[in-house]
């Protein structure tokens, strides 16, 4: 009974279980969890692990939708479970079904092997390659240049887009939306000195031209980013690399000029 005397509403949480050392194929375990207004799906998983079955395995860290650890496939969609209220995901049968991110090898239960995710990320050289000729005071960016980045720098690398991508499902050679979003960020960054090489790298057959514009990455992104638009931009730039490079050189010259005192 709750404090006001009413019976607590219980929700069935179905958790996909799989231990590759023991199980032949994944199966579901069902747990009953009390529904409270503020309870998130991650809270429900904690409750299951602490009070019902300590062997349930999942990744989590910050609980503030920043670290990207807790992306899971809930009721048919990749989401961060730490900032999703349990009540928002209850289906018509009063159930919430939690699975690991699709198309990635399962390590145990809800924990997946993200090796391919990070390998592809590394492929695009996500770090900044700065100019040797650093301006005296600061690099400058116009508000238009910042707006063109479309908040790409707020990606938390949760893997929701990567594992929602149908091309990744078929072919792990594809660079993937997460890495291409980072490449987009670097290519449009006026401080970066290697946009042409980056465009050559992502313009190969495993890069931007492998995307089929299915939009699953946009649908899955918990930060409302637009990897598809970033891929489209990279496609256009990859096809006119030389013109882009010339424009970049002019921009770089302007950046390195002394800042006019106002």
């Amino acid at each position: 009974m709750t404090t006001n005397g009413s019976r607590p509403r219980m929700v069935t949480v179905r958790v996909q279980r799989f231990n590759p050392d023991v199980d032949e194929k994944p199966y579901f375990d069902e747990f009953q969890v009390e529904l409270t207004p503020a309870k998130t799906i991650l809270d429900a998983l904690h409750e299951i692990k602490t009070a019902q079955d300590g062997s349930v395995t999942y990744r989590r860290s910050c609980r503030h939708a920043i670290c990207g650890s807790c992306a899971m496939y809930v009721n048919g969609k990749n989401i961060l479970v730490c900032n999703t209220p349990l009540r928002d995901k209850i289906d018509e049968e009063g159930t919430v079904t939690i699975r690991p991110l699709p198309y990635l090898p399962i390590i145990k239960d809800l924990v997946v092997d993200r090796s391919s995710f990070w390998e592809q990320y590394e492929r695009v050289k996500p770090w900044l390659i700065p100019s040797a000729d650093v301006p005296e005071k600061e690099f400058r960016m116009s508000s238009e240049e910042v707006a063109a980045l479309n908040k790409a720098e707020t990606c938390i690398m949760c893997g929701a887009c990567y594992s929602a991508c149908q091309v990744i499902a078929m072919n792990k050679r594809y660079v993937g939306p997460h890495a291409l979003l980072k490449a987009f960020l670097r290519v449009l960054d006026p401080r970066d000195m290697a946009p042409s090489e980056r465009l050559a790298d992502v313009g190969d057959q495993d890069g931007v031209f492998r995307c089929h514009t299915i939009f699953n990455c946009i649908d899955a992104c918990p930060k409302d980013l637009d990897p598809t638009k970033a891929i489209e931009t990279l496609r256009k730039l990859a096809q006119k690399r030389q013109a882009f490079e010339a424009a970049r050189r002019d921009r770089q010259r302007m950046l390195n000029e002394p800042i006019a005192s106002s």
Partner: protein
Amino acid sequence: MRIFQMQRYSAIALLVFLTIHMIVVHYPPFHVDFTRIIERMGQPLWKAIDIAFLFFVLMHALTGTYAVIIDWERFYAYRRELVGAAALIFILAFVYGARTIWAFQPPA
């Protein structure tokens, strides 16, 4: 990138040719009958349009099929063979189709 460009350029061409095709063949603004169709198919300009249409249809279909097939990792290693097969199918289908269109003569 070349496959992507071929498919996009052929898609733009198909927009034009499909519009012409739909208007002329399926929804003509005039009465359509056998005599008109035969007469049109015998004109060199329409033969050229139909051959160009065939060219872009084949280019679009084969580049699209190639792109979909190499999405499968198991076929990825056979890219060269797939390009060869696509080129062969293109040549055979285009020559056969173009010859058929060009050879048509309306009955006297």
